[in-house]
């Protein structure tokens, strides 16, 4: 059964346009272990990214720790999806792990980190977001930071 689910997950995750995300989400918590495995061990960043997207949608609490642990992923496109997943899961308690990404060299990562901190209402991130606003060169990141401050009530 487990192997069948893992095989199904791999097939769905490797599709060209990845339109079958809902199929994975329907598997629910049964898919968590397989997705975490892919997130942790898969060499293809696209597969890791898709695993993070799916975990965020399934919202199984067992996935939080592995997602946080993979915040060390070197690929910015994977990082973005892990940050988005943690935001979707409303994990305010991990805001301290996301705040450092406001200083990430990759502008998209900074933007997604700011957006995530606003979504999870991480009031402890206020100073860091204001700091980002003072030095950020890209308008699209500044917009995310301003939106986040609004969500935090500032």
């Amino acid at each position, binding site marked *: 059964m487990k192997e069948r689910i893992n095989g199904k997950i791999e*097939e769905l995750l490797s*599709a*060209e*346009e990845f*339109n079958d995300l809902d199929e994975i989400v329907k598997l629910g918590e049964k898919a968590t272990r397989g997705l975490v495995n892919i997130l942790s061990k898969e060499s293809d960043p*696209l597969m890791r*990214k898709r695993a993070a997207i799916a975990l965020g949608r399934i919202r199984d609490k067992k996935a939080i720790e592995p997602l946080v642990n993979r915040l060390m992923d070197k690929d910015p496109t994977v990082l973005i*999806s892990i940050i988005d997943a943690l935001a979707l899961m409303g994990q305010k308690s991990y805001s301290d792990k996301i705040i450092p990404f406001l200083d990430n060299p990759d502008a998209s990562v900074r933007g997604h980190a700011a957006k995530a901190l606003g979504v999870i209402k991480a009031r402890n991130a206020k100073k860091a977001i204001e700091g980002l606003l003072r030095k950020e060169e*890209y308008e*699209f990141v500044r917009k995310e930071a301003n939106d986040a401050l609004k969500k935090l009530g500032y």
Partner: protein
Amino acid sequence: MAVILYEHINFRGKHKHVIDRDEPDLHKDGWGDRISSIQVLSGTWQFCQHVNYGGWSVNLGPGNYPWVEDFGIPNDNISSLRRISTGIGLINTPGLIIYEHIDFKGDHKHIIDRDESSLHSDGWGDRLSSFQIISGRWRFFQHVDYSGWSNVLGPGNYRWVEQVGISNDQISSIRREEAAVVIPDMQSVETILYEHIDFRGDHKHLINHGQKNLHTDGWGDRVSSIQVLSGNRWTFHEHVDYAGASINLGPGSYRWIVDAGMANDRLSSVRANIVPIFFKIIQGATTNIPRDLRIANQVFNQYGIEFFQLEQETNNAPALLDLDQPTCFMGQSPTNEESQLYSLERDHAPSDIVVYYLRSTNLGVRGCAACPITQPGSVVTDGATQFTMAHEIGHVLGLAHVASTTANRNNLMFPNTGQINVATPILTNAQQNTVRQSQYLV
């Protein structure tokens, strides 16, 4: 080797093309003692006073000669011309053709490597309805002397000016904005149809597209000779909509269509069998366009179809590097970022397929062809395989996925291109027919 002869000074009035052939007697079709300006596009040519290359002569190489008397040729005095030597032509030269009517119909005028401060001076002011930019980037102005509103556009076929924000019959001057960008392996695909044998009489250009009904502008059942200047896949059909008897012609001069295998005055449609594509790269994305284009052509060349690169450009748009694209379904409402992407410096023809290379989308697609119908194209990301671009354009051309079975792993439209198990994927007969029905195969 090519030259354009003009009736009047400054490349005005009627014109005549002479390409890869000599003209011993210009009087045969009314061009003797009638030439006032010349454009030599390639090679060196000898222009002679009398027929059969007699009398005085002047040699001219590539360049613009707006008034023959400035170059030692008496006005209205040339009666023959011939090729003297081959040589490099006007490369990197910005050039366009403007047309009187929509869909490149009616009279046309060439503008090559020069500006036109007043189109009114030869009756072309406020008369332009479609145009083809062969190379370079051009600015179109409302008024003479480059004034009033203006619009900059790059290479492409613009079948109706209003599709690109230009009012019909409202252009009065045109200026080169930027020289042509030469991309390896990129060139125009061009055929010229002539009314009479030996490339005489009226002519009609087909550049980077064919025409499925030549009767709509009076060219049906009227062609007697053809010059295919470039493109290996032209098909010429007896009936409209690419139907009836047909012949395939590669580059060459066909002085009498009967010798090429088609009855005289019977041609009704022509197809270049190309899919013109414009590539846009978001700075920061990883791309391998030469590989993607090569693979796409390996697949589609099997069926007589060529993917043809119109141009590529890189855009500094960091906000679009990782696109907000939550789903990939045809007909979906675009997100703000998708709308921005599809409108990005859209200085090409609306009907051209655009492939956008970016780093990722938040859905995590390798590729996605869910662009609006009015902005055909696809997204290709860093996660793409060598087949992704061809696969996505397959969707744009009307192809759906094949079933995810082992037997289908040789098909371009297998749902996971990473699992395609052949070097050159195939299309089934039904898929080929679908592609041939596509409006984007021109």
